[in-house]
């Protein structure tokens, strides 16, 4: 094929006519049939439709045609241009698709190679569990509160109807802060439960009260696979007019259903905590049998996850609530124990060993 200049020369000497237009068109369409790559297609475009292409030149030379023929030749040339452009578009689309599928056909990666490492972090399982628990209660209208870990003996025990020198104190082996008043009395301890926040919350606000309190607690006891001296609890408290034991049951059933799903069974039995009356121990079934075909009177099949009860009138009186007007319930649960049950963890000591092989699993 010649250079554009060469075409120009030819165009210049060829008189313009309708026939000439038709010739260029059929010549172009014929050539197009043999074009099989995008580069040649572009050359074709330049040759016929480019600024100095044959058809463009014809149109440009329209003024040299006899005046009577101009309109007819012009119309023919425009039609030819439209046809060629349309054919170009179609051919181009075909060739592009052909080309791409050729490229894609050759491209292959090993999809089993690992991806680019993107940094990933995890929450500590306790944090995760605390969030799950508090979220479940928050959706039932409980506000999340927190309180001091180093606490007065008064809040930790006395205001919860646990007088000093009462054997009930043995339920909470205590770590004491070695800081004495001038009279030798040591008022501070590491809270043994989150329950002192019951008194603190009620001292601060008037009923109705609906709070959950997550936080660290401490007990002076030997550690083993089910006991840690440092652990988390979530305390709950609802006080107002007309709050009943049935509400306590309903609230905790709803909580357990959200955390453990429908498969586990729940059991309420009588238990003793000095700051509630009646007192409750809530246990969850440790068997996986959905149908509950196992004899339910095998008490080892139940795992205690939570202590609860109706707030003792003495506790209400102690914070200035009228026990004849207000009733309420309180509960407290061990966060790790719930996580252990939920995730099948068999040793509580794993939680604060901070072995990343453990804590990064959640």
């Amino acid at each position, binding site marked *: 094929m010649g250079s554009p200049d060469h075409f120009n020369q030819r165009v210049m000497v060829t008189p313009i006519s309708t026939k000439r237009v038709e010739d260029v068109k059929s010549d172009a369409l014929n050539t197009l049939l043999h074009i099989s790559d995008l580069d040649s297609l572009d050359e074709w475009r330049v040759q016929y439709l480019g600024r100095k292409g044959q058809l463009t030149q014809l149109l440009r030379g329209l003024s040299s045609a006899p005046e009577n023929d101009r309109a007819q030749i012009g119309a023919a040339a425009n039609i030819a241009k439209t046809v060629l452009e349309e054919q170009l578009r179609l051919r181009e689309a075909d060739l592009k698709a052909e080309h791409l599928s050729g490229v894609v056909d050759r491209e292959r990666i090993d999809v089993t190679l690992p991806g680019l490492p993107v940094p990933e972090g995890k929450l500590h399982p306790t944090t995760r569990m605390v969030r799950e628990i508090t979220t479940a209660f928050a959706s039932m209208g409980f506000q999340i509160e927190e309180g001091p870990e180093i606490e007065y003996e008064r809040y930790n025990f006395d205001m919860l109807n646990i007088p000093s020198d009462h054997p009930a104190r*043995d339920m909470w082996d205590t770590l004491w802060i070695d*800081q004495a008043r001038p009279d030798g009395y040591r008022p*501070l301890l590491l809270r043994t439960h989150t329950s002192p926040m019951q008194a603190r919350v009620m001292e601060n606000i008037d009923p109705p009260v609906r709070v959950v309190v997550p936080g660290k607690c401490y007990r002076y006891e030997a550690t083993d696979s089910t006991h840690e001296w440092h652990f988390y609890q979530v305390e709950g408290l609802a006080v107002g007019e007309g709050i009943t034991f*049935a509400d306590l049951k309903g609230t905790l059933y709803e909580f357990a259903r959200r955390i453990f799903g429908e498969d586990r069974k729940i*059991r309420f039995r*009588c238990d003793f905590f000095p700051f509630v009356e009646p007192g409750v121990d809530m246990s969850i079934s440790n068997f996986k049998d959905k149908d509950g075909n196992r004899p339910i009177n095998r008490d080892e099949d139940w795992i205690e996850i939570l202590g609860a009860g109706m707030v003792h009138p003495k506790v209400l009186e102690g914070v200035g609530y009228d026990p004849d007007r207000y009733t309420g319930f309180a509960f407290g649960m061990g966060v790790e124990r719930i996580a252990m049950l939920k995730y099948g963890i068999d040793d509580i000591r794993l939680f604060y060993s901070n072995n990343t092989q453990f804590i990064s699993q959640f």
Partner: protein
Amino acid sequence: MLIPISWLKQYVPIKIPALELAHRLTMAGTEISEVKEVGADWGHDKVVIGHVLKVDPHPDADRLKIPSLDLGNGQTAQVVCGGPNLAAGQKIAFAREGAKLYNAKTGKVAKLKSSKIRGVISTGMVCSELELGLGEDHRGILVLPNDAPTGTPLVDYLGDAILSAEVTPNRPDCLSMLGIAHEVAALTGQTVTEPDRNYPENGDSINQQVIIDVTDADLCPRYAVSLIRGITVKESPDWLKDAIEKSGMRPINNIVDVTNYVMLEYGQPLHAFDYTTINEATVIIRTAHNKEKLITLDDEEREINPPILTIADPKRAIALAGVMGGRDSEVTETTTDVLLESANFEAINTRKTARSLGMSTEASYRYERGIRTELVPLALRRATKLILDLAGGCAAKGILDTSPTNKIYPPLRISDDKFERVLGTSISINRADEVLSSLGFNTSRTEDKSLAVEAPYWRTDISIEEDLVEEVARIIGYEDVPATLLSSEIPHQIPNPSRDLREQVRDALVAAGMQETISYPATSLNSMAKVGVSNSAGQAALPIANPMSSDMTHMRTTLRPSILDTLSFNRRVSHGSGFKLFEIGKIYLPNDDVNGYELPKEQEVLVGVFAGPSSQMSWLTTGNAMDFFYAKGVLEVVFRRLGLNVEYEAHDTDQILHPGKTALLNYKGNRIGVIGEIHPNVLDLFNIEDSPVALIEINLETLYSTLEGTSPTYTEVSRYPESERDIAILVDDEVSSAQIQHIIIRNKLVQSSTPFDLYTGDKIPAGKKSIGYRVTFRSNQSTLTRELVDKTRQSIVKQLERELGAELRD
């Protein structure tokens, strides 16, 4: 408290299986943690009572015998037996093939198989206590009483179940067989039969033979004695030994065993003195003298002081009241006259005594919980009767009972509204009456349809109406109370921005690839010294009076040691990996309060460390060692997420951080934390070989208090395109990037600017650095022309030259 069903049956009929009984007790508040079923494993008719008809010697072994056994119903058996105590005429336990027995050699329970012993076929076994799991004795075979019915399955004769009860501190009555019997009666619809307390009083009046003097009626509200003379101290009969053993105690002799038996029966501790050892037959209940000495039954010489209460005679102390008897007055094999004490000692003083002496006994355990004075004469008469039955002798006429007045437990009145109000379900007064009566409460209906209720003499835990609600609910069963959702008013929710911020920080750090850790908040002075925290005044950590261990003696005032320990530990177990660890935890700062009564300040602190390669090994990328700038990148993500504009200020005086690679974090003029690389010397102290290790630390408390309106504010989005220009300059080393940035960014058309190249080295003069910035220009009003952008860039270069002595590099 161990409860043998065989014993419990004496007071209340048991018509349900032991497991079911355990379940009902558990649900009603007395948790049964274990049920040990004696004989349950044997196989019902695999072990039967046999009668030894005759005993032949084994033809080939002197030690072995071949007894001929009658197994009843015409069955007989011939076995080989090694028990040295085997003799004709005995009743024994015979195990057939297939019986499951304990094998002392293997230590396991296994099925019995027939075997040939020295050529003689043995189709069963004559069992020892150990093999049956009845006791430890394996020296000889178990010999049953002569009246044991031949052919009867042994489990029907000897089988038993022992319940292990976890008694809550409010129920000292459940530390007794009768207390449990009353629970069982209410739970199973049975009634309790009280034990026999009647005996002949054939001796002289006790008043002429004993003097009692209680000097402190507050510490000893009731004290009673009986006197039995002419007794014989000997081994207890089998039924008594069996009951004592199954209850977890050791049989001593018939007198001591009776006192223990009745204590377990009534929950009322008793003590037997050898009457003849008591000087002037006078018993004085008084507080100890200063530094008084007493040798207790466990042969310990103890120094006792007031207000410890003692039992004494005119010359000396003879017992620790409510805790333990004295050795000099104890009942021995030669004792003939017994002074039997049943008394009530005040709970708190008894508890203090036991604690101060480091003792806890069956007696003190019960007194500490507070028991009713009404038990005193009942237990005394019951024990006196049993001693007469088992040791003979003659009881003095009457008992001495110092203060037969009892503490008043006022009656309560309860109506059916109360049940409804507390439980949320209605319980008829009839039903309540029924339940309370079944528990032994005295009830009477009043005119206003409520119930007047008096707690039975063994209960100490009933003082308010709610207690009665619990009684009724627990016997009916908590399972029967409906479950409803709270319908009461929902209180106002009060926002808690500081908690929200903390949780956002946690999430941002995790999103930036960090692993959260939680560590113990107690540490040691030594650990804190490793990070340069001395325990001098002003930063003294709070000491724990009774620490868990020597490395957790103080409440931490810094989170640095624990996170470095965590890093060090994890490095040891997974070396080669990179670690990005953080903890958000509290530090505990003592108040300057001289009275020691203020709560310490608890502040939340974030600490994080970075060590090792920034990413896992990969075919796509090599993770660089994480350093200051990696840590800073993470912090920037966090701060951007929180909308905080934090400034970094070089800092060279941190205790553990590299003086040249550390910055303070300033927010609104407050120092909120620090970032830096750990000093290599400190890494050595924690056995961390990685270098560098970067640390971030933020006092969230300071941050919370500086926060206001951190919610993002909108800036207008430009519709016009941006233009970029680079500016590369040569400046003195001391010139900071922040200074350069400050100048660039203050120009109006500059949208942002970021350093993209930093060079120091041979190719430029010493003391200089080459630094390049890519500056983005954009306007909200129009598309910037090339000319305007170039002009602005020129102007910036001029400013840098003028203010920082910069030289433009091309």
